């Protein structure tokens, strides 16, 4: 047993260190040649995925690898614990890092971007922070890596370095840092003060420790303090972050960073408040569903009015993130599973959409919706993938988006929550309303007569986006292991 534990601890340590070593390796390799640098990135990404996915069997057998690094102050520790939700997040981020690296190589070279070494270095650092968020065993550790994630992605957002980019990057940093320090940190301090601990514990740590309006207030501090979850009105940083190169938008602002946000919210609902406790305090904590529902509808409406493809995708992400928050807030087993798998389904779909947007930019330098008329014939692979991703956002079978929506709906029915049911239906209509015209335009409209001819994006880009499109489809058919893993989350929750 102790030997087992030792190897598991090592796995956490290795998962945190691999991206760091990769970052150093990238710096060193870039002095030799760009190709070697790319090899190091891919090697690092694959190693990380191998290490993280290697922990899966233990998780399935019900073990919870953990590692206590240091006790800073009495009760405050730097500690890690792998549990189903964090495992899923880590597996997702590390797996998609490989595909995203393939894509990045094609994209960054295709667009002749500056300072590519810095780009790959900070990308690796962001992944290290993501692993820390995923495996954090308590609120303090979560907060530490949450902030590191903000800081390490900042150079990526401001990559281009011109004035408009820097202005957006300031919004990004300003909102994320000020909400986390102004709201999340007080919430954490409050939690430690009343509960005496911040450890993520099955059934939560707050039951019986606070009551009444305080529950709702503390929940609000957490939800809005975790700006990365982009619940309105703290969503503005996400559209601002779209100034980053597309691979950043794809992996970080569709997967790692934003999922870190909703992951943290879900984790806090499940492991800090405890679902049962929060359900019993429904009168004051019930506002969260309304906030999430409002965000879903409002963000979808804003998305309808966008003319820029990446901004449209950003608002779509804002809406989809609140699906996860809303599902978690429904506080029923099936909805919690739905929240977890929606992270996966949305990740596959949205990364595909961003990849496609980046492919279009690389091949044709087009960023606006009206420029996409007839582009399907010039870029059939890209637009096929785009179509699959969009259908997944709407939730049409056979795509991954259908599965998670099914679970969230089922959870909403379990709770007889008409608001959640109505919101899901309404937003499905809205999703269709902004994605279907693009698909229709791309495939069936005629190109404008003065169009410049162009072909497909660079091969690596196309390969990457086809892979994620296949994952989107595949998740519809092969979602068993994920659901099995997340059922553990619910099992722990109900006993």
């Amino acid at each position, binding site marked *: 047993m102790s030997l087992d534990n030792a190897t598991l601890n090592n796995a956490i340590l290795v998962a945190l260190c691999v991206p760091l070593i990769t970052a150093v390796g990238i710096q060193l390799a870039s002095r030799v040649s760009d190709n070697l640098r790319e090899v190091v990135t891919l090697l690092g990404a694959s190693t990380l995925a191998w290490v993280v996915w290697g922990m899966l069997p233990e998780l399935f057998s019900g073990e919870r690898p953990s590692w206590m690094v*240091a006790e*800073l*102050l009495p009760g*405050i520790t*730097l500690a890690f614990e792998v549990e189903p939700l964090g495992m899923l997040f880590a597996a997702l981020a590390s797996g998609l890092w490989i595909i995203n690296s393939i894509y990045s190589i094609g994209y960054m070279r295709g667009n002749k971007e500056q300072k590519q070494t810095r780009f790959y270095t900070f990308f690796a650092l962001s992944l290290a922070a993501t692993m820390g968020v995923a495996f954090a065993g308590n609120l*303090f550790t979560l*907060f*530490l890596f949450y*902030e*590191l994630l903000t800081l390490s992605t900042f150079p990526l957002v*401001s990559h281009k*370095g011109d004035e408009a980019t*820097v202005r957006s*990057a*300031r919004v990004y*940093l*300003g909102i994320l*840092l*000020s909400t986390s*320090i*102004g709201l999340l*940190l*007080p919430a954490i*301090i409050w939690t430690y*003060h009343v509960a005496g601990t911040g450890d993520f514990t099955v059934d939560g740590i707050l039951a019986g420790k606070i009551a009444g309006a305080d529950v709702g207030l503390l929940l609000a501090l957490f939800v809005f303090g975790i700006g990365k979850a982009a619940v309105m009105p703290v969503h503005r940083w996400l559209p601002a972050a779209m100034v980053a190169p597309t691979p950043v938008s794809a992996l970080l602002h569709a997967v790692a960073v934003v999922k870190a946000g909703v992951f943290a919210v879900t984790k806090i609902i499940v492991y800090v408040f405890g679902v049962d406790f929060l359900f019993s305090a429904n009168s004051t904590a019930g506002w969260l569903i309304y906030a999430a529902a409002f965000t879903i509808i409002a963000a979808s409406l804003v998305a309808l009015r966008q003319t820029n493809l990446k901004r449209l995708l950003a608002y779509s992400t804002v809406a989809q993130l609140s699906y996860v928050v809303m599902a978690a807030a429904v506080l029923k087993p099936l909805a919690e599973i739905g929240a977890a798998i929606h992270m996966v389904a949305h990740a596959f779909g949205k990364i595909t959409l961003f990849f496609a947007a980046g492919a279009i930019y690389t091949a044709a330098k087009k960023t606006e919706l009206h420029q996409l008329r007839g582009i399907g014939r010039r870029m059939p692979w890209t637009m096929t993938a785009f179509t699959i991703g969009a259908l997944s956002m709407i939730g049409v079978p056979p795509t991954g988006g259908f599965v998670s929506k099914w679970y969230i709906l089922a959870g909403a029915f379990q709770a007889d929550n008409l608001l959640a049911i109505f919101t899901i239906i309404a937003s499905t209509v809205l999703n269709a309303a902004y994605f279907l015209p693009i698909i229709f335009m791309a495939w069936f409209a005629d190109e404008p007569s003065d169009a410049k001819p162009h072909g497909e994006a660079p091969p690596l880009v196309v390969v990457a986006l086809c892979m994620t499109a296949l994952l989107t489809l595949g998740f519809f058919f092969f979602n068993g292991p994920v659901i099995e893993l997340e059922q553990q989350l619910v099992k722990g929750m109900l006993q």
Partner: protein
Amino acid sequence: MDLTPHLPALQVIVPMLSSPLILLLKPRGLAWAGAAAVALFSFAIALNMALAVARGNEFYYEMGGWQAPYGIALSVDGFSALVLLIITGAAAAALLAARPSVDQQIEAERQPLFYSAFLLALAGLTGIAVSADAFNIFVFMEISSLASYVLIAGGPDRRALPAVFKYLTMGTIGATFYLIGVGMVYMMTGTLNLADMEARIGDVTDINPILVAAGFITIGLALKAAVFPLHVWLPNAYAQAPHIVTVFLAACATKVAIYVLIRFDYFVFQANLENHALQFSTFLAPLALFGILVASAVAMFEGHIKRLLAMSSVAQIGYIILGASFVTTAGLTASAAHLFNHALAKGGLFLAITGLAYHYRDLRLDQLAGAARTMPWTAAAIVVCGLSLVGIPGTAGFISKWLLINAAIDNGDMAWLLIAIVLLSSLMALAYVYRIIDTLYFKPAVVAQAPGEAPMQLLLVIGIVAVANIVFGLFPSFPLALSSSAAELLLRHTL
């Protein structure tokens, strides 16, 4: 021969006797080498004593074997060991890094004088920390102050002269107030030894002179410590001093005054005067709070980087005073820990500024735009130390802020106001640190950019201090042990 019992005496004597000898070292570089060696040796002595104190041994030393009321007594406990560590650490770091900057700012023939004054200041400050006698504290205070006036005025900038005149005037008033207070206590008790004072005040029949003395001493020391609103001498003195002097003074000069303030009030008055704790807190807590808010607000709009950080020091002094004004173990621990952590953060920042100043003569913020491009390591150190100043988890600054907030929570009715102010001021600190980072990294350069990094010698020390900010953020047990032993010691003397 075992030197251990003599360490408190050596702590003062070594720098004091080396000071005139340094004058003889005329050949270039020798004076620096001698001063740096003495500072390192002093640091070793302080570390040695701190380790012994952490193990539970306290030092009590009688010069020449003369007993306390007649001879000179020195004592080192947890509180003074911590302060000695800060003083000698700051001196060692500043002197090790000093050479390139001093070569640039001070003519070769005056350098031995400069280093000699530096060691005299060091001797004075350490003397204050080891003295067990109120009058010796005054003598050492004068030694250190006079040496500091010389150091500040020693720079190439003639604007230092009015700044130093202001400092001299205020400093002399402060010292005189202190002396008047000590004189009155002496008049009533017939002793200058702190321990004897504590014992004898109880027998004094007419308490009024003691009350007046407490007022004089508290205000005089508050003036020396730059407690808001008695801080007006500080920003200019820091801004105009030679850069390496700023490093030293910012890290420890005001802290030593705070040390005497706290020690005097807790050791001598707390145990004897009725309601002294209440008077002490109701007088200092509002000043601390106003200082925190006003100085942070001023720092947010300050245009000169050294003045900005100096204003930030005024705010940080507010935190230290605030913790002490709770008159609880938790509050005093937070104060003592913040003495240490703020010295690390601010010392690191001013060291990095020294690095910038090596290439940039004008240190107004807008002139430094874009400096990070050619001085990436220096800029990175500013980021790390800046985050420590804000109190982001993972850095040393977080530890003391956490302790302070926890101490405030126990403070009853005022708790929420206090916490709100501490958090608000953290956000303000974030704002002014972010302004620096934003300028260094993202603004287009307005003057010719630095040709490269700061000299290696300087850069190395900057790096060590920056890393220390992280190390003590994750493994704070040693400074915390000293801080909490200091707090218990101080409270032992309460009524």
